[in-house]
């Protein structure tokens, strides 16, 4: 773990990514403590203000402090994206391993399900699902994660297949170890690495989708602060003040760029082909 972080640190881009990710996690964790105002503290008299010492990023159309809302939005973005990836990875791993170990017929069915899900572009799938099933944080997380299941499933299946035929697994099977035991003790630890890399590469994608859906008004419901819904509000009042837009857009850019750089550095750091190359 420490070696991995050191390896990420050696690239300037990895360093930047790591710092952004650390900043985001820190803000998400400490938002209630360090935010200067409550995220929903309305102050209509001071609506649509520019940056000042009292409101560093200005205020929105209801006079809410934008810095506090950006910080609170960080919590939403982090929680939603981690929840989505966790659910997608769990279901994907399960289905992928089942596909690799189960009889051919079941494998086929699982793969066809993956193919059909992948036939929809992920944002559009999430959009269609939420439009039909209704908004809400729980729906958002569950339905968006559905779009990411095939990626995890395919990688889990490929890795399981590769390991299933490895000599040491054969030996264990001859010694009488059960399927479940073999999977838990060998396959799982071996596929966690690639799955973790895939997860971190997908974090910015999920952040983008969450913000996008919230921008369309079908993501995180108000009054919860999401960067996407802040951008939506800002867009509506764009002719009166640009600051609500800038705050949310800046936070989104920082988060997606930082997590992308981090994800790429992590991928490179775990790539055996690149090791030893500085």
């Amino acid at each position: 773990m420490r070696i991995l972080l050191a390896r990420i640190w050696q690239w300037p881009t990895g360093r930047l990514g790591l710092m952004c990710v650390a900043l985001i996690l820190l803000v998400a964790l400490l938002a209630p403590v360090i935010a200067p105002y409550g995220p929903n503290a309305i102050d209509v008299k001071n609506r649509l203000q520019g940056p000042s010492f009292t409101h560093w990023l200005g205020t929105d159309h209801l006079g809410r402090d934008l810095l506090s809302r950006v910080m609170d939005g960080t919590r939403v973005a982090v929680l939603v994206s981690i929840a989505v990836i966790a659910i997608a990875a769990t279901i994907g791993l399960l289905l992928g391993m089942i596909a690799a170990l189960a009889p051919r017929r079941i494998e086929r069915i699982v793969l066809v399900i993956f193919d059909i899900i992948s036939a929809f572009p992920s944002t559009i799938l999430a959009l269609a699902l939420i439009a039909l099933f209704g908004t809400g944080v729980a729906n958002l997380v569950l339905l968006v994660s559905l779009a990411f299941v095939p990626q995890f499933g395919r990688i889990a299946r490929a890795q399981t297949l590769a390991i299933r035929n490895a000599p040491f697994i054969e030996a264990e099977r001859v010694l009488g170890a059960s399927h479940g035991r073999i999977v838990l003790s060998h396959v799982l630890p071996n596929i966690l690495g690639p799955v973790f890399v895939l997860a971190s590469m997908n974090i910015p994608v999920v952040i983008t989708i969450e913000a996008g859906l919230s921008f369309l008004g079908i993501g995180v419901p108000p009054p919860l602060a999401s960067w996407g819904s802040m951008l939506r509000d800002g867009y509506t009042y764009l002719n009166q003040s640009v600051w609500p837009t800038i705050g949310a857009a800046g936070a989104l850019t920082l988060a997606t760029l930082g997590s992308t750089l981090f994800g790429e550095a992590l991928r490179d750091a775990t790539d055996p082909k690149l090791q030893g190359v500085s």
Partner: protein
Amino acid sequence: MPGKPSPIMKTGLGGYILSRIATLGIVILGAMTTLFFLTQLVPGNLAQVLLGPRATPAQVEAFAERMGLDQPVYVRLWRFFFQVAQGDLGHDIVTGRPILDMVLEVLPNTVALAFAAIGLGLLIGVPLGIYAATYRGSRGDQLTAILSVSIIATPTFVVAIYLLLIFSIWLHWLPVIGAGEPGNLVDQLVHLILPATAIALGWIGYIARLMRASMLEVLDEPHIRTLRAYGVSSRRILWKYALKIAAIPTLAVVGLGIGDLLAGAIFVEIIFARPGIGSIIYQAINNRNYPVVQGGVLVVVLMFVISNLIVDLLYAWLDPRIRRSLAEAGPS
């Protein structure tokens, strides 16, 4: 394969196209079925949901009967397929307009946007990638790398909002709203600039990065050294021999990104208030106009699947090795 290989290759390619179209049909049917069942899974009475909470039970019943919602599921699925096959995507529940008409009316706008974006992406991204690979490690190369990753990472709709801020709010340079006056090509093109750039920027970065990586790989291959050994000009080596090979993996990834392109187009249409499939879907979502959402999404999925087919065919056209393996593996 002894004897004359070229005719075999031609039928192979034809067979390949046929098999691709067959797969395409299956994927579309699968997607339609999924879409259909998703609508069925909507919690609560579908007719009630569609009409909204204020509808009376009598209205709901009449609506259900009119839409055939009282029929068993398989009958409705069959009818859905049948209708779509005839080009009937259903009707707008508010205005009663055929959805197909609504879609066809704005489809050219969306298609123009998508093509303009991808064209711009290729036109700038490819030379940029080749430049970065040729002058590897230079200032320009590093700058390209940093800009690429920043723009790729930023969501399209955020890029669109930045462009909106810069060019329309601050500089007042370019028009923001709409798709331009119908029939006035110049006006339409001017209105296309900002939306297309918003989508294209990410693609430029994406393509430049891919081109750079695959160019560097190709330029190290022995066949490039062969060309150098015979004094072939470096312009010809770069733009003919290396480019065609480097384009293959780039094209594959571009194919994978088409879904994001279409999704990005939806957002960009909304932000720039441009009539298109995206704005239709958006309005339908806000009005809970489910048949329109269903129809709109179906059209987007169709575009997605068809563009993937085009990419596959381009792929086979670029790489004779794939052409042959397809000809051999194709349906006999």
